């Protein structure tokens, strides 16, 4: 009985995978042979950011701590939860606060999704910062990866601005006064201070409706778009600059010692001949 079942499953499976529809989507067999493992990485648009093979050392969890990847993953989580929140949130100072209350109490899974958006945002600031620190300590910003570090600094700034613009949207006392403090800071910039403040808030004094719509627009489209473009360059450059840097190579002293040791080993052999 079980054999008949198996063969039925097998037959259906091979019918599906040999069908024209399946073969038009996947141009290769299941990735369990070196050829198919290569084809899947080169032929799949979502996977092709990765190389086909990767150095075992550079892949170690304790080397990268997955921090860059997790930052990107959190960006995706924030995009999905953010789109959900956009269905219910209107950036109007008379109803924005009430919208948040409705999301918390009346929208199915609204409270959970808002919580996830908030905590993922804070977490992303943390993972991006730690990623940057990790890259510094491994010296992975050194040639040929200098420019990718610069892109990374721009991404770090974009992440902070994304978080900062989102802070205002619930229109409660926390966000309102945090943004008031932050945008007042901009007005102390030399020469273009007033211009910077007015650009941020959209009005000469304080924070109001023009500020809300500016922060909202930057938060949901302007900055995510900038982040997406910068990320595309960042990921592309990892590959083009020779892949993950991997753990630091031996120091100058260690290289010297290894050379001395080799020379010492060669010495007796040379005298024999």
């Amino acid at each position, binding site marked *: 009985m079980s054999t008949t079942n198996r063969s039925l499953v097998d037959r259906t499976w091979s019918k599906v995978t040999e069908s024209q529809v399946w073969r038009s989507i996947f141009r290769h067999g299941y990735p369990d042979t070196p050829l198919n493992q290569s084809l899947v990485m080169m032929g799949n648009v979502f996977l092709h950011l*990765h190389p086909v093979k990767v150095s075992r050392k550079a892949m170690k969890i304790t080397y990268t701590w997955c921090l860059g990847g997790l930052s990107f993953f959190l960006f995706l989580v924030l995009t999905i939860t953010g789109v959900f929140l956009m269905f219910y949130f209107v950036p109007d100072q008379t109803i924005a606060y009430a919208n948040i209350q409705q999301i918390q109490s009346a929208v199915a899974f609204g409270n959970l999704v808002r919580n996830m958006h908030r905590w993922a945002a804070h977490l992303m600031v943390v993972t991006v910062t730690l990623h940057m620190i990790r890259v510094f300590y491994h010296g992975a910003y050194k040639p040929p990866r200098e420019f990718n570090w610069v892109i990374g600094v721009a991404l770090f700034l974009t992440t902070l601005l994304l978080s900062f613009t989102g802070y205002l949207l619930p229109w409660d006392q926390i966000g309102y006064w945090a943004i008031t403090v932050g945008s007042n800071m901009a007005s102390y910039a030399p020469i273009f201070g007033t211009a910077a403040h007015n650009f941020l808030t959209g009005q000469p004094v304080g924070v109001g409706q023009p500020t809300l719509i500016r922060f909202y627009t930057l938060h949901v489209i302007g900055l995510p778009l900038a982040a997406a473009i910068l990320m595309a360059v960042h990921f592309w450059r990892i590959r083009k600059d020779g892949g993950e840097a991997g753990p630091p190579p031996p120091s100058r002293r*260690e290289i010297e010692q290894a050379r001395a040791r080799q020379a010492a080993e060669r010495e007796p052999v040379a005298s024999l001949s």
Partner: protein
Amino acid sequence: MTTTEPRPATTEPRPAATQKRYRTLAVVKQEAVTRVEKQLEDSVFVWPHLLVREFLAAMLMTVVLTMVSIVIDAPLRDHSNPNLTPSPAKAPWYFLGLQEELHYFPPTVAGVLLPGFVLVALAILPYVDRNPSRAFEDRKLSIALFTIFALFFAVTVLEGSFFRGVGWQWIWPWQNIYFDL
């Protein structure tokens, strides 16, 4: 999966088919300028070795994030009121280091010049640090400087977050905490 059909023995292969034809898949540059004597790398296929790790990391993150979001609610204080300044009015946590500097330095220095200098310094770091070695032992100075810088910011952020109360006065965390996430 695909197997080559055995060719009928009777047909002669056409001359063109006996010559191998090539097409360019990719131009692979010799590796980075820093390359010295590189041994053959111990590498593995990304599918499945790296992808499985990435998948697990993403799943773990999803579980942790969902758990935290079920247990802890995002804060929402009273409706904003332009006439009621809370004391202290704190910026988001990652700017509290700067707000702490604001307590000691004029706003132009603490709020504009210092963060501007830090960002520019970070951006030009790879062009300033000319030391080609990546080994910890060879980079004592840059590592020391960066560690001091990172610790300075960590300490000021913690200070601004948990040690500052009404009127930005010093307060111990066990007395009261004025901190919103």
